[in-house]
C-alpha cells in the first residue's frame, strides 16, 4: 500500500528540516502520538493510538533513519506492532524537501504493509485512514511552522 502526498509550508527548507528532525516539536504534530523516545540520533520509539472504525488500538513503533541528506531528504523505516503482535506494521518512507518561492514543498511517500488481524480489514479504508492521518500531520506541521516566530526553530 503506497501513500504519498505533498504540502507547502511558508518556511525555508532549513527551518522545515530543523522542525521535522526535532522530536519535541514534531510530537504534537503526529496524530495519536503522546511520546517520542530518542534512542540515538537515528533511532526513535513511539506509541501511537489508532482508530479504524470499530477498531481502537495502539501500535508501538520504531523509526530508523536509514539515510539523510540535509536539508533535502530523509529515508526511514518504520516497524511497529500492536500489543501481542496481533498486527504488524512495516513501512519504508521517503521525505523530500523542495525549495519553492518563499517556502518549501514537503513530499512524503510511504510504502506500508500491515499484516495480522488489521491486515484483514478493508484494504481501501486503511489507505484512506493513512492518507487522512498524513493530511492531519501536514496541517499541524504547517500550522506550527507558520505561526512560530521566524527563526524560532533555528536556535
Amino acid at each position, binding site marked *: *500500500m503506497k501513500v504519498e502526498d505533498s504540502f507547502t509550508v511558508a518556511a525555508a527548507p532549513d527551518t522545515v528540516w530543523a522542525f521535522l528532525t526535532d522530536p519535541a516539536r514534531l510530537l504534537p504534530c503526529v496524530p495519536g502520538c503522546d511520546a517520542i523516545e530518542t534512542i540515538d540520533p537515528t533511532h526513535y520509539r513511539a506509541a501511537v493510538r489508532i482508530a479504524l472504525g470499530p477498531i481502537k488500538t495502539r501500535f508501538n513503533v520504531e523509526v530508523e533513519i536509514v539515510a539523510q541528506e540535509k536539508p533535502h531528504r530523509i529515508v526511514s523505516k518504520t516497524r511497529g506492532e500492536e500489543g501481542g*503482535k*496481533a498486527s504488524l506494521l*512495516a513501512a519504508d518512507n521517503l521525505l523530500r524537501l523542495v525549495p519553492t518561492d518563499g517556502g518549501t514543498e514537503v513530499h512524503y511517500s510511504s*510504502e506500508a*504493509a500491515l499484516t*495480522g488481524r488489521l*491486515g*484483514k480489514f478493508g*484494504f481501501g479504508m486503511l489507505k484512506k485512514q493513512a492518507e487522512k492521518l498524513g493530511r492531519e500531520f501536514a496541517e499541524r506541521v504547517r500550522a506550527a511552522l507558520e505561526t512560530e516566530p521566524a527563526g524560532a526553530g533555528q536556535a
Partner: protein
Amino acid sequence: MDDAIDPNRSVGRSANRLELREKLTGQAKYIADLSRPNMLHAAILGSPHAHARILGYDTKAAKAVPGVHAVLTGDDFPDGRMGAFVKDEPPIAQGKVRFIGEPVAVVAADDEATARRAAQLIEVEYEELVPVLTPEQGLAEGAPLVHEDLPNYFMVFDAIRYGNVLSETTLSEGDVAKGFAEADIVVEGEYETPAQAHVAIEPCGALAEIDEQGRVTLWSANQSVFRVQANVCESLKLPMPKLRSLTPRIGGGFGNKMEAHVQPLVVQLAIVTRRPVKLILSREEDTETVRVRHPFRIRMRTGARKDGTLVAREIDTILDGGAYGDDSPGVLGYSLLMSRGPYNIPHVKAHGRLVYTNKLRSGAFRGFGNPQVSFAGESQIDEIARRLDMDPIELRLRNAVRGEGPWFLGQKLASNGFVECLETMRAAAHWDERRNSSPTPGKKRGFGVAAAAHISGLLGTGAIVRLLEDGSVVLNTGAVDIGQGSDTILAQICAESLKIPLDRVAVASPDTDGSPYNWGTTASRVTFTTGRSVALAAAEVAKQIKELAADMLECAADDLELRDGGFVGIKGVPEKQLPLFLVSIQAHWRRGGPIVGHHTWVFDRPTVDPKRAVVSGLPFRQIGVYSFAALAVEVEVDAVTGKTEVVKAWQSVDVGRAINPRSVEGQMDGGFAQGLGFALTEEIVFDNGRVVNPTLMDYKVPTAKDVPFHMQTIIVESPEPDGPFGAKGVGEIGLVPVPAAVANAIADATGARLRKLPMTPERVLTEMLPPETDDDAA
C-alpha cells in the same frame, strides 16, 4: 432421467451417492468433526515478511502460557524437503521465510484459543531481504534468489532451471516462421490471468495421533492419502511405515488438498507431545497459506488463411509459481501441451518459464494451466472468426482435430468426440437462431462459444476386489472421493463387471496400510485410470469364480458366464448355475482361500512422437487420453456499469461413456460455476506479497443468483478403448472453456475484447467505452 431401473445394470445409471444419507442428515464426518481422547489443538504463527532470514526464536513466553504443551519452530523439525516435482519445501520455514503467512512456528495447547494466544507470544528475529514480488522481478538481472539452493534440489525430471526460474519448457512442431509467412491474417495479444482461490467450502485441516511404538495415524482433508504420506515422510524424514494416512469425508478439493498443507505440522506436534493433535485452518489461513491457481501472463499469436484454415500459433508464457515448486512444473508443461487447442495447426511453438516469487505457492487447481491458455487460444479463434466474418463454430469445425488426430506433439487419439460436441452444442443452443429473441432493455446481449479438451490419466493406480462370504464385494482402491462421487462410480464399475447389484458393493476408505497405491484424485483421472484398475481386478475375480465354479459344476471354466444378480452358470443352460455365495464359501473354507482380484494400471502411451516434435524441459513422458467439450453462453452486459451476467449456458462433453450421467452433469455444472467465478469476479489480490482479500467478504465466489439456472449439459459418448466401459474423465473440463466463452460473448455484445481476467465491470466498461467518451452517460 432413467427411471426404469434394472438393479443389475449399474453403468450408465444415475445412481445415488453411496454416502448420500449421511450427508443429508448431517452425520457425514469431515476432518473438523473428528476428535480423539486427550486431543490437543494447534495454532500457527505465520511470517509477516515476504522474504526474510530467520535469525532466531524466543519461545519462552509462549511456552509459559498455561495449557500449552509444545511450541515448535523450524529448529524443532527435521530438515527434509518435499515436493511433487522438486524437493524444495521444508515442513515449516527453516532459515528463511519465503511468503507472508508461511508457518514459522506451531503451538499445541489444550484448546484452540490458548494455542492462538500463545502463538502470538513467540518472538522471531528476522533480517528482511528484498522480496521478489512478480515473475518479471524474478527474471530481472541481479534479482534476489528465492531459493539459493535450487541447483542442488532433487528433481523428478530433468528440468531446465536457473536463477529464479524453476522450470523452462519448450515444445514445437513444424516451423512457425514458415507458418506465419503463409498466414493471411494474424491475431496477436497479451493475456493475463490472476491467482484464483479454490474455496472448497471445507477449509484444510488434519489430526494426528501417535501410538506407543511411535507410529502415527493421520487423518486429513486430502485428495490422496499416498501423497500425504509421501509429503509428511519426506519433509519429516520419517520412514514410511511410521505413518498411516487415512481420510474422513472431504468437503471439496479442486486441487487445494492434493499436496501438503498442515499435515507435517500436526504430525511433528503429535510426535513431540505424544498426544493427538488437531489443526483446522480458518478460512483466511486457508486462503493465505495453502495454494492458488497460477497467475499466467501469455503472449500468443495465431495465423490463419483467408479461408479460415489455421496455419501457425506461437505462445510465450510466464507463470508465477510463488514460493515453492509444488505441482508447478507439471502445470507449465501441461498448459503448453494444451496451448495448440483441439485444432490441427501445423506450425506451433510453445515456450514457458516458471518463476519463483515471494508469494503464496501456486499449485494444482481444476484445469491445471489449461483454463489460462485456453482463455488466450479460444479468444484468438474468436477474433479470427470475427476478422474473417465466419461463424465461430464453423471456424472451429473447419480446424477441429478429428479422428485419431494426432494431438500436439504426436499422441494419437483413440477416441474423439470433439466434432460431435461442437455440433450437439450448436443444436442445443439454437445457435443459428440465437438472435431471434430480444435482449433485456438496458442490457447489451451477446453470445460466445469456446471449446476445450482435457486429459484424464497420469500415474499409478490399483484396485483390490474381494469377494465376501455372502457373495458381495468390498472394493479397495485408495482413491479419495473428494465429493465428486468417485466411490459411487468405482462401485458401479465393479458391480457391472461382476453383474451384481450396486448395493452388494462396499467401498473401503482409503488407507495407506491396506489400499493399493493411488497417486490421487486429480487430473480428471479416477474414473478413467482407477476405474480401469477396478474393471481389471473385477475381471480377475470373475476368472477365479469361474475356475472354482467349473470344478463345482463339473464343466470347463470357459463354458461359464456370470449372470445378473450374483450367479455363475453354464452358458446356454439356464438352470445350471450357482449363487456367488456358494462359490465364495467354497473358496473361503475349502480351496485356495478367499477370492481376491488385484490389478494395477498406469497409462503408458507416449505423449511425444520424436519424429514430429521437438521438446525440452517437459516433466512427463505419458499423460493420458482426451475428453472434449464445447460451450456456448448468452451474456447480458449492463450498458451503464459494464457488469456482465451469464444468463444461459449450453455445454456438450465427450466423456467416452457416462458411468453415472448425473455425476457427469454435476461435474460440468460445478466446473462451469467455478469457471464463471474465474471469468468474472475471482482474483486473489496481492499487495507487496500480502493477500489483501483472504476472507469470503472480500473474495467473492458466485452465489446461486449469479450462476444461470438455465444450464444444459449434453453428454457425448465416444468410447475410449483404454477406459472402463469406454469412460474418460470429466472432473476439470467443464471449467476450461468458460473464461473464453464469456469473453467472446462480451465481445459479441459490446465490441470490447477483454484480455485480462477477471472481467470485472470496471474492465468491461473501460474496454467498451474509453473514459474520454464518458459524458454521454446512458
